[in-house]
């Protein structure tokens, strides 16, 4: 088991190092981490693993800024930091809840497509043991010579669009603080879900 993990980790490092400056690199890094999740001891270990992967592959400050659109400049520096932190938490915890116990998954490449200068869409397929493959499309953008994920489209549905519309409605209704506490609440729910005893889940 340990050996397997070691070999796997070595391979992963090798793969990532080999493709560090390609658009597919952050996607591969994320996928590796996701596939490794079920093997982790507990949800805290899983969270730690995905945190590293998300921090390494996502451009969260950029995503956060775009997500709030014109609201962003109205936030105080503290609010901006708090929002980035909670968005990061939310992203990480969603991965853990969705992939933490999913065995037998497999990713395959489905091509790349240039979207604009310094922006590429990396298409992949997520194969589940039973069920049709899901199309996962990552929009990656180069910033300071590194490619980073700025949006994920799952089965045609864009995460950025979904969240943007949701957050916009919340800010208009309850203000920025309302959004921050809502995210806080959602995150703790996600954490509960992620760390619930394994047998009761699913």
């Amino acid at each position, binding site marked *: 088991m340990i050996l397997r993990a070691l070999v796997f980790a070595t391979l992963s490092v090798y793969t990532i190092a080999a493709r560090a400056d390609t658009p597919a690199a952050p996607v591969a890094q994320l996928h590796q981490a996701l596939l490794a999740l079920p093997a982790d001891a507990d949800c805290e270990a899983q969270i730690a693993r995905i945190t590293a992967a998300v921090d390494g592959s996502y451009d969260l400050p950029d995503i956060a800024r*775009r997500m709030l659109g*014109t609201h962003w400049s109205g936030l105080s520096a503290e609010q901006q930091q708090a929002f980035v932190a909670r968005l990061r938490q939310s992203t990480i915890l969603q991965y853990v809840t969705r992939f933490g116990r999913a065995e037998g998954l497999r990713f395959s490449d489905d091509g790349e497509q240039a979207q604009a200068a310094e922006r590429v869409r990396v298409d992949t397929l997520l194969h589940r043991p039973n069920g049709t493959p899901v199309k996962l*499309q990552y929009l990656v953008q180069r910033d300071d010579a590194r490619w980073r994920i700025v*949006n994920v489209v799952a*089965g*045609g549905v*864009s995460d950025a*669009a979904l969240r*943007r519309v949701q957050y916009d409605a919340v800010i208009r209704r309850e203000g920025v603080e309302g959004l921050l506490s809502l995210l806080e609440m959602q995150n703790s729910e996600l954490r509960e879900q992620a760390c619930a005893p394994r047998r009761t889940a699913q």
Partner: protein
Amino acid sequence: MARMRELAAHADPPTGASAGLWGRLAAHCIAAGHAHPAIVLLALAALLAAALLAIGHGLRVDADTASLMSDELPWRQNERALERAFPELGDTIVAVVDGSPFATEQTVERLLNTLRAGSAPLAAVYAPGHGEFFARNGWLYLDLAGLERLATALNTAQPLIGRLAAQPDLPTLMDSLRLYVERADEGQRARLQPLLDAISATVEATLDGAAAPLDWSLLFAPGGERAQRRFLILTPQAGAHASALAAVRAAIEALPADSARTRLTGKLPMWADELDAAAAGAWASAAASLAFVAGLLFLGLRHWGLVAAALLNLLAGLVLTAGFAALAVGRLNLISLAFGALFIGLAIDYAVHLLLRYRELLGEGRSAAAALAGAGSDVGSALLLSALTTAAAFFAFVPTDFRGVAELGLISGAGIVIALLTSLLVLPALVRLLHAAPAAPAPAVSATLRAIAESPIRHRRAVIALALAAGLLAAGFALSLRFSYNPMHLKPVDTESQRVYQELVEGVDSPLRAQLLVADAEAARRSVERLQALPQVERALWLGSFVPAQQDDKLAIIGDLAISLGAALPERIEPAPVDTAASRSAIAALRAALAERGADDSTEARLARSLARWLAAPEASAAALQSALLGGFPWLVNRLREGLAAAPVALAELPDDLVARWRSAQGGYRIEATPRENLDEDAALIRFADAVAAVEPAAAGAPLAFVGGARTVIRAFVEAFALAAVVIVVLLAILLRKPLDILRALLPLVLGALLTAGTAAALGLQLNFANIIALPLLLGIGVDNGIHVIWRARHHGGNPLLGSTGRAISFSVLTTLFSFASLMLSPHRGMASMGALLSLGLGLTLLCSLGVLPALLPRPSRNRQADQQQSAS
């Protein structure tokens, strides 16, 4: 009774008492014409042939109202400078396309393809806001708030768009909608309704066998403001106006049924509609008035031969005058086109006066030749004098800046001279050929008529008092008589081009804009600033205005949208296969989800019913529904992809066809100022034009042309009337000599003018570019009538109304009145108002000449009449 008989005996004394030089000359002409009809008519035939040749070669109709004004006028020079710098902006056909963004874009594209590929004689085809540049950068032209609303709407719709982009089929559409319906909060639900309503309509239409494909452009209209208006501006090749218009109309006719509503307006269609309206019924009206004139002439002359002679004489004069117009001017404008009507109205008078006197003399037993010559010497001087005064009144317009009337003045003035000459030379020749039999004696004047005719003389004081009072009252009203500045109000109401114009003039697309040509970009910027500062100006534009404002913010929004929405848009949408079973179950699932929500009259319930109907219908075809609902989807994806590719726009990036309309080949810049108020109101029109002209003296454009034109016309009429008045008084002084008679001749003129102006004002009839030509005509006829009455009274004594003169005046005015009254039926508002003013004016002038003037004449002296009788015998 005895007095009546006495009066009757003296009413028509013998002729030849004091013919004078002019009378003798007229008598000689008439004698010559009567003696040598063959020579006269051969000469006439040759002249007519030459005139017809000249007309065929050199007389065209110019419907451009701008060319009615002298090119020397400052505002005309501004206008011409703009026309030279931007020739394709001049005479255009404007197609106005109204519909949803999808339908208008598709329709504009179809029209462009037809018109560019076809053989339509168009020099330029321009679709503002259409084309690759605007497809890509169009969102930059929304305001920031509008673009944000659009971005939110598109993000909301993203799950639907994204799923369909991956799998454009019915199950995907229905499942996505079901997820929306199940999860939507109130705000999302409201945003979803237009789409659900449209899908409902498409489902119903498909079941009813109608083609109503779902218009996906509704996703671009978050606020429900789906209607979009596009323009196509078409410039015909020089000289191909009519065929270009026909080709454009044909292209619109040929549009498929699902195209957006397309209507035509603009200068050329409006001219065409205007000319059509002016011509509509013109033949019937001409025939009717000719019949009236012929009937009236017969009542007066009692012989068809004489009627024919008068009409043929008239026709010959008309052709000769048109020939003169072809040689001297070369064109007829919208105003000088009326020379025909004026000619008929005035020229028939000479024949009527001559022939009625001729008949009168025949009745006294003279031979035809002697009666004609006698008529010439009796009325010749009056005819000559009235012809000279009328011609003078017309020629007085020649030096004015109102070229429309200046040309009318030249043509009509010449026409009067021609009419006099043909009446003295050709008419006798025609009479000789057509009036062989001696006429029946002149009809006796009935007692009633006689009593009426006597009343002005009998009740002299009352008549004068009444005339004075009426004149004063009319003068009071006349002060409120206004000139209508807007020539658009003269055009026929019920034409497509006019209706579209009326719609446009109320909004920001108003065609009544000010324009300006400046030398460089810096000057353009300053001018736009100055104009924009005016409270009367809604918006001032120059080329630089087409560089979108707040581009950084807008590009940021579009950039975010490219990430949130653009990522899931494929380059090409492949049509998906139809899966009937999956479609039916997805539709059933959506129906069930909808049925749980919304009251009976809600959007959800409506769609649920439509879907239930579809599921129950035996003829329902999943393939047909998929094609109706998703056939337009690839268009949406393409438009989104194009819109997301927006890039910073600088002056240099603007498309060439746009630039060509704002920067001239010489590098000058065009500026446009749109009014804030609806300029259909004259007061607003004047405010706007004056405000713009005050800060930009070089400004041109329709509002300035209207106001400048109106002022030119008013000035022209004041100048011309002053000149005409002087000339008429001088002529009257030479020919009448007695100061009192001069005053008497002028009186019906002044009183008639006052009464006409006062009554018109009281009736709400405004002066305008068209009916103002009634004024010279009234001047001519008014002074003629006065001269005839005075001449008769002076040389024959008695009541001038009871002889041939009163009848001649009545008949000639009535013929004219009838021909003009028929104009009131014209659908062309300018023509109709001309008819109204002329009829009114002629009626009142006749009243003054026959009802008031005799009351001012010296009492017929018994002794003098007796003297005359003695000297004659």
